[in-house]
């Protein structure tokens, strides 16, 4: 816990004549948002613990342009995309892992036609791979019998069809997965996607995150697991609204894994 971890940047490795196997794309939320930074740190601790040869771009990373694009500003999106692609290509990046499903979707699906083709995986996929390869192991049943529900983010789930990797991580930690009624393909959005995170919701009779958090609370789980920094924030707010702080926690799968391994 007290061990100081050095997070290498790609530039630093290049200067030493070294190369990382995988670039960890941190994303804006993971870099700046206090809640999301915890996810970033947890993930880095896992990477460090397992001994994955990774690096970050540091100050050379820039918004993928996802929120600009979803808000209709294609021009700004492509400006961002081109700048990022120039950086990634200059460093000859081939594999990217990210803790944000929005960054994941954008780089994986929307960068190739602009000249940026990489192998892009979400951090839950990497964690599952590490578990399958036996590199990421857990002590005696870290979450045995603990009721955990899982919230499918739209951009990992419906947008890219990744439903099983996150669930298999929970399984590997011996958690008792209790599904919400709306899950997998029918999962309900947390309300943040499509750049909604950055504006007030339109007029309605309920906030989407409250609707979704209520559904999660109904499962009786004490942990709501998520895979997206925005979902984590939205569901966390939902928990506060329901006065369930202390009873129900919202945690990213990276945080759960780090907890299970006492990192």
């Amino acid at each position, binding site marked *: 816990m007290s061990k*100081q971890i050095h*997070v290498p940047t790609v530039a630093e490795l290049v200067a030493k004549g070294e190369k990382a196997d995988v670039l960890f794309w*941190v994303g*804006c939320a*993971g*870099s*700046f948002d206090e809640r999301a*930074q915890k996810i970033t*740190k947890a993930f880095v601790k896992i990477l460090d613990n397992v001994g994955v040869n990774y690096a*970050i771009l*540091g100050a050379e*990373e*820039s*918004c993928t*342009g996802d*929120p*600009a*694009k*979803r*808000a*209709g*500003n*294609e*021009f*700004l999106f492509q*400006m*961002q*995309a*081109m*700048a990022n692609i*120039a950086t990634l290509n200059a460093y000859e990046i081939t594999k990217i892992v990210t803790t944000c499903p929005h960054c994941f*979707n954008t780089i*994986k*699906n*929307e960068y190739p036609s*602009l000249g940026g083709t990489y192998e892009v995986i979400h951090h839950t996929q990497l964690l599952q791979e590490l578990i399958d390869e036996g590199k990421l192991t857990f002590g005696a049943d870290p979450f045995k019998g603990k009721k955990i529900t899982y919230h499918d983010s*739209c951009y990992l789930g*419906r*947008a*890219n069809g990744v439903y099983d990797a996150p669930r298999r991580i929970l399984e590997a930690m011996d958690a008792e997965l209790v599904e919400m009624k709306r899950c997998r393909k*029918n999962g*309900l*959005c947390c*309300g943040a*996607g*499509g*750049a*909604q995170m*950055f*504006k*007030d*919701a*339109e*007029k*309605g009779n*309920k*906030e*989407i995150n409250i*609707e*979704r958090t209520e559904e999660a609370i109904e499962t009786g789980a004490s942990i709501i697991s998520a895979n997206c920094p925005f979902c984590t924030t939205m569901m966390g707010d939902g928990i506060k609204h329901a006065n369930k702080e202390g009873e129900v926690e919202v945690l990213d799968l990276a945080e759960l894994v780090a907890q299970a391994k006492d990192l």
Partner: protein
Amino acid sequence: MQYLEQLLFIIVLGVAIYFFVQKIKKIRRNIFLGKEEKVSDNKPERWKTMARVALGQSKMVVRPVAGIMHIIIYIGFVLINIEVLEIMIDGVFGTHRALSFLGPVYDAAIGFFEILAALVFIACVVFLGRRFIAKIPRFHSPEMKGWATADATYILVIEMILMVALLKMNAVDQVLQAKGADHYIAAGSFPVSHFLTGFFTNFEIPTLIVFERVFWWFHILGILFFLNYVPYSKHLHIFLAFPNTWYSRLQPAGEFANMPEITNEVNLMLDPSKADPDMPPPEKFGANDVTDLGWTSIMGAYACTECGRCTSSCPANITGKKLSPRKVMMDTRDRAEELGKAKDEHGADYHDGKSLHDLISQEELLACTTCNACVEACPININPLEIIYQMRQYQTLEKSVMPTEWAMMNSNIENNQAPWQFSPSDRANWTKEI
């Protein structure tokens, strides 16, 4: 007299087909008011999608009650149409049960159709019950007021009447067969209409023939009326579900197309060597009217049967926001019809100056979280998100109309490389705290 009836039938049939074809041509024209799209790649996958989703109804059964009832009506519709083929042959050639030479196969088929007809009738009753007694919320959204609900009711009632006519026709027919009337050869099996004969057995043959003819004509006229009603109705999905699934998106749902016109502009700014200097600057960004949408979006609008599964799974709609993906599809169809009519009156190059934004408000567009729930929910792969998104692009890029928070977010991305106002040089500060 017999030839007169045949002649009359041929005229009626010809007129019905003529009007149907005329209307279909107009719809085709309206669909192609949309922009050209490159959507015929990966044909094997497209055939598979169509077979699975349209033919196999794979997405219908996600909601089992409606799914199973729908499959009954669907199979009923397709198979009973084989009997309609026979009715056509009989009508044109003055024969009776022209396909009865098939013997036992024919008897089994007629019996099976009767059972299907009864099941279709029951399914229609269940559907009416779901709408008007159970009052399932998605059938009572604001956009369902007026024509939309009337249309749905007419279709169910017409289907029920057609099924009754078919069964009654068979009921009289078997009485005539039993009484040995000329022309009415013994053929078919009647497991359902067998129970409906009671009323007819006391009549003499000439009266029964009148009954039989009345039901026969009623049934076929009903079908021809229905054929011509369908293109004006939400029921057009029975045809368009097939092309709509064939042309549906094969890319990951999260992939939003990049605009090539903008790529060129961006290249001109960042790296002119990659840009095509001869590419004309784009005329318009995003969608103002149906003419700015891809043609598959307009086809989707005509294919929509207004079931509302999209709306009932839309997070914005569930939480009381104004957005309803179904309404987006209905408005798109209404607008395509309106523009099509205006072009009929004033010529192909005419534009009435109206826009799709007259029907779909900014408030609706802004409520979308781009979550793809509507796209997933649609039983025939219609994509309301594509229309919402392209209209949003128009508001942002052409009109610069957007919430101030979005304007701030954009300027932060532009200046600070993040949607929030942090210094880009602080991006990796978290690494010091680990």
